[in-house]
């Protein structure tokens, strides 16, 4: 295999991990709140802007930037929950779905008004250094993305498997009525689930801003769709499969680009989605524990 293809696969893996982070946020939200979200891309954009301003203020301190994007998107997640979900649990699903689309337009346009329409450069947040591992070339930014995503996934899975909050979140995702009857505050728990999903996307925004070295108001547009696509691959609610879907889309895109042009990027990811939906519309997953 030639070096060009290998480095495209590494690029694809790296981008795919960021997609995976956004997608598992979507899967967490759909699983716990029970409604679809199309605001995820704009949450990523807010995350990128938050860290952009914190980088300006703190002199490119990665940790501060990450915390800021996490916290600000957490708060946006609270607002999103109150506006788009809280009142609509007894209404048809499409109402909150359309509401999230409206909310995403609002965020996008507010961002253009507040932050301006031009791209904000996020240059040299991380020193550009290339590591050679045999024939694989890995930049320091890519290494940072790998490590951050893996750490976040580990924290998230510990949260879900080891803490009582994780148990509450899982209970609410499986049956809201039963969760209320064992004394769980369903509304608050669902809101926290939504905030976790959003804050992960916010952190992904920091990564994607650093990766593409810019933040701009419309950067979330295709990301919403790609995150949703990845989540579809996992049957919408499976967190690990949504992450796998994200990685696959990232790799597919970059292998496609290797044989064509970078402007065809989205053709490959959405072509992949269409093929998946035709041949395996339920995603990779099989419902566990289903009986009768």
């Amino acid at each position, binding site marked *: 295999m030639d070096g060009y293809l290998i480095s495209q696969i590494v690029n694809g893996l790296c981008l795919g991990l960021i997609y995976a982070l956004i997608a598992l946020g979507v899967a967490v939200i759909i699983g716990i709140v029970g409604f679809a979200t199309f605001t995820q891309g704009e949450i990523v954009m807010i995350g990128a802007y938050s860290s952009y301003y914190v980088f300006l203020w703190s002199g490119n301190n990665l940790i501060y930037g990450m915390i800021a994007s996490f916290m600000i998107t957490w708060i946006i997640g609270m607002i999103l929950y109150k506006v788009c979900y809280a009142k609509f649990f007894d209404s048809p699903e499409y109402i909150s779905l359309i509401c999230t689309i409206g909310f995403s337009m609002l965020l996008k346009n507010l961002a253009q008004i507040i932050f301006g329409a031009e791209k904000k450069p996020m240059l040299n947040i991380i020193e550009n250094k290339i590591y050679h591992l045999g024939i694989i070339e890995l930049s320091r930014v890519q290494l940072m993305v790998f490590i951050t995503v893996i750490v976040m996934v580990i924290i998230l899975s510990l949260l879900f498997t080891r803490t009582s909050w994780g*148990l509450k979140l899982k209970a609410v995702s499986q049956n809201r009525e039963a969760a209320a009857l064992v004394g769980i505050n369903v509304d608050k728990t669902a809101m926290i689930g939504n905030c976790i999903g959003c804050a992960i996307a916010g952190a992904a925004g920091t990564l994607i801003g650093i990766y593409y070295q810019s933040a701009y108001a419309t950067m979330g547009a295709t990301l919403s769709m790609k995150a949703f696509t990845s989540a579809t691959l996992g049957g919408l609610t499976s967190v690990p499969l949504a992450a796998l879907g994200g990685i696959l889309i990232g790799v597919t895109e970059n292998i496609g680009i290797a044989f064509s042009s970078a402007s065809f990027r989205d053709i490959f990811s959405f072509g992949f989605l269409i093929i998946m939906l035709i041949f395996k519309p339920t995603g990779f997953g099989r419902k566990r524990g289903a*009986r009768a």
Partner: protein
Amino acid sequence: MERALPEVSHEWGETMLKVNDLVVDYGYVHAVKGIDLEVNQGEIITLIGANGAGKTTTLKAISNLIKKSSGSITFQGEDLTNMSPHKIVEHGICHVPEGRLIFPDLTVKENLMTGTFGNKKLSGTEKDELLEEMFEWFPRLKERMNQLGGTLSGGEQQMLAIARGLMMNPQIIMMDEPSLGLAPIIVEEIFELIEKIRESGKTVLLIEQNASMALNIADRAYVLENGRVTLSGTGKELLDDPKVQAAYLGT
């Protein structure tokens, strides 16, 4: 059990749960048209009635899972009418819903642990004790501790739902058709269990379609028809009542 439990007494204690003139409408359908109920400390109370009589609706209204049109619910003198469902649970009112509603993708043990969320006063060791006690009561659940809830049989799921309810060490346990769809031998086990729960000092409010078994273990019973209480009395009285015999006991 030394945990704060009401004293076991067959001299019925004070009124514990009181439902006053409860009315529930689903749109234009009047499901419950003014029901009054009283549950005293330490009793087994049963509501019997045909499908659509308003039994489940009454229970859901007590837990505030559905909106009441009017009426009030008081528990130990405290007004629960407009309290949110999880707050009602925290008062020591456990509701084992119709259709069990266990968490299918959580293990049996995790399902049981969710039961403890309803009682904030339980310490870690008390939770472990309760878990051990439930495993003693339900040895089959212990065998299947690490299996997913959804893989259990219907009877085991019902046991799990009841055990999950008991994990909060409630004062009153409300059970909605625990025998529904189960084999006769398991139904008997469930009824033995209900008596055992009462003996442990808890109050029971039971909804049943299996009227003869329910009336046999009930201290008092209410008969619901079309959203109204048409008859009430001790279990024995209702068992001997010709109208009840004709309508619900099939004799």
